[in-house]
């Protein structure tokens, strides 16, 4: 599996160099394109939605991302990931308030920093994702060791929830020495 292969969805280029998106009308043509490109993505790949040079208000972000994120989080796009990239701070605030109000979250890179989770997400899940994103992959035992969790089940729970929201993808299972199996998780972006 070619892990973390990234395709690019460059908003500015696709919108004929338009730089400001205020409301639903402004992104109406982009949402189907985004969905179409996501569906064509091969399993295990990530679509990088580039906000380079773009200002976007929450109303436009809602129209562009709401349905796509819900469909990803419902498992419809198995193994495919989405990362919001090249976000300036102010645009990340606009998108964050949209995600908070819609109770959604998304993987995002803000101001060139490593990827994080933006929106409605617990701090524990956020820090777990950020830890996984610094590595090639991680198992439940890695999470348990790093965060000093009492049980491996707690770590598994975190990873499973991150997988459900589309922030991690799961590989495996692979056999463990001494019996049993384990899954390996990778961040959709790092």
């Amino acid at each position, binding site marked *: 599996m070619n892990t973390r292969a990234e395709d690019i969805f460059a908003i500015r280029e696709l919108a004929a160099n*338009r730089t400001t*998106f*205020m*409301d639903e009308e402004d992104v109406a043509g982009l949402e189907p394109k985004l969905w179409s490109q996501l569906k064509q993505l091969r399993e295990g790949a990530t679509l990088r939605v580039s906000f380079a040079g773009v200002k976007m*208000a*929450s109303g436009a972000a809602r129209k562009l991302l709401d349905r796509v994120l819900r469909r990803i989080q419902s498992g419809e796009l198995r193994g495919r990931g989405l990362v919001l990239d090249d976000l300036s701070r*102010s645009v990340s605030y606009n998108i964050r308030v949209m995600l908070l*109000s819609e109770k959604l979250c998304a993987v995002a890179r803000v101001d060139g920093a490593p990827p994080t989770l933006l929106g409605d997400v617990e701090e524990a899940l956020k820090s777990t994702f950020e830890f996984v994103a610094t590595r090639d992959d991680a198992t439940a035992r890695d999470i348990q060791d790093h965060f000093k969790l009492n049980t491996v089940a707690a770590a598994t729970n975190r990873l499973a929830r991150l997988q459900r929201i589309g922030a991690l993808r799961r590989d495996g299972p692979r056999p463990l020495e001494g019996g049993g199996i384990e899954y390996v998780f990778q961040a959709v972006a790092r």
Partner: protein
Amino acid sequence: MRRDTKGAAPLRAPAVGIIAPAAVRYATASEELRQALLPELVAGRARWISMDGLDIKHTQRHGRLLRTAASYRPGLSSVLGVPHTAILDWSSTGSTTVAALAQFAVLVPWLIDQGAVVVCVEPSNRDVARCLEQGALEHVLNFRWVDNRPTLPISRGDESSMSLLGATRISTLSQRPAGAVDLLASPLVLDLRHSADTQRAHKEQAGAASALLGQSGVSLGLRDAVSSTCSALFLEVVANALTHSAGNWASAAFGVLNEPEPRLEFAVADDGIGIGAAMSRRFGLWGVHRIPERAWLAALFTDADVDGRRGILGRGATLLMREIVSLAPGAEINIRSGGASLHLGENLLRPGIAASASHGLGTVITCSVPLARRA
């Protein structure tokens, strides 16, 4: 001394200009003009509107301007094809605020739409003049400028050569004892009635202004997070005005307010239907249009249950407003919509006392963040 920067062509309607008879001294221009126009005023062909309600000392009276605008009815003369004249008298207004300038930039085209010729008298505040000269009004109106004082009006050439750093430097942080407000950019005047192309151009302007506001905040010493949130909120509020206000005109301005202490302030004003009516339209809550505007405003910030529909309020701008007052100690947000107002500050939510809670009459949203005073 008479200064004529735009040629001496006679005023044509619709038009806006700043006039004072050459023989009249500045100190008495306003009163002498009033005397000269007395027959017109008595006959109802002209209306004298004092702008002292926009003085920085009377911020609690700023809402009056929109009510004045809403009640403005040109006389019979305009029906007969003779332009009615609205005289906006700034002579007794010393310093003003960014919010007041944004309202002013909405009021002028609104009056023009009503068929009035607008005459601004003695805009002693430099930014009022700038609002008229550079606030895109000259593109939408038949604008003409005649000033009677040896002031230094900022020409478009000066503006284009003024870097952001320069704009920051001239602000009050250098202790310059100037007027109360220094606009950091020309106010945006947004015509909400025109084509998709016009709307698109407005949106691009607003995006650029939002970015400039963010950069200005950093230049003025605000933390990155505060500055970025201000920039994000500016974009949200302009987007709301463009999308939901259902008005004809909106304006957005930002600048440094010098008195009583330095603050970065931005304001967005529109002449639309007001927040309550806009929310009703947007969410189809036709039954709630009788809920007073102040109840809507309070509900936006208290997660109140309106008409059994919890969770529909406060999805964009209000979340950012909350964030700003929590991030920046001393930050204040003021919302005035229709006859109601609301003040949001640190640990404070204070609905204003409204004489009447009516829909319409436009909305003005102001955000003000304190700046550190430099030596």
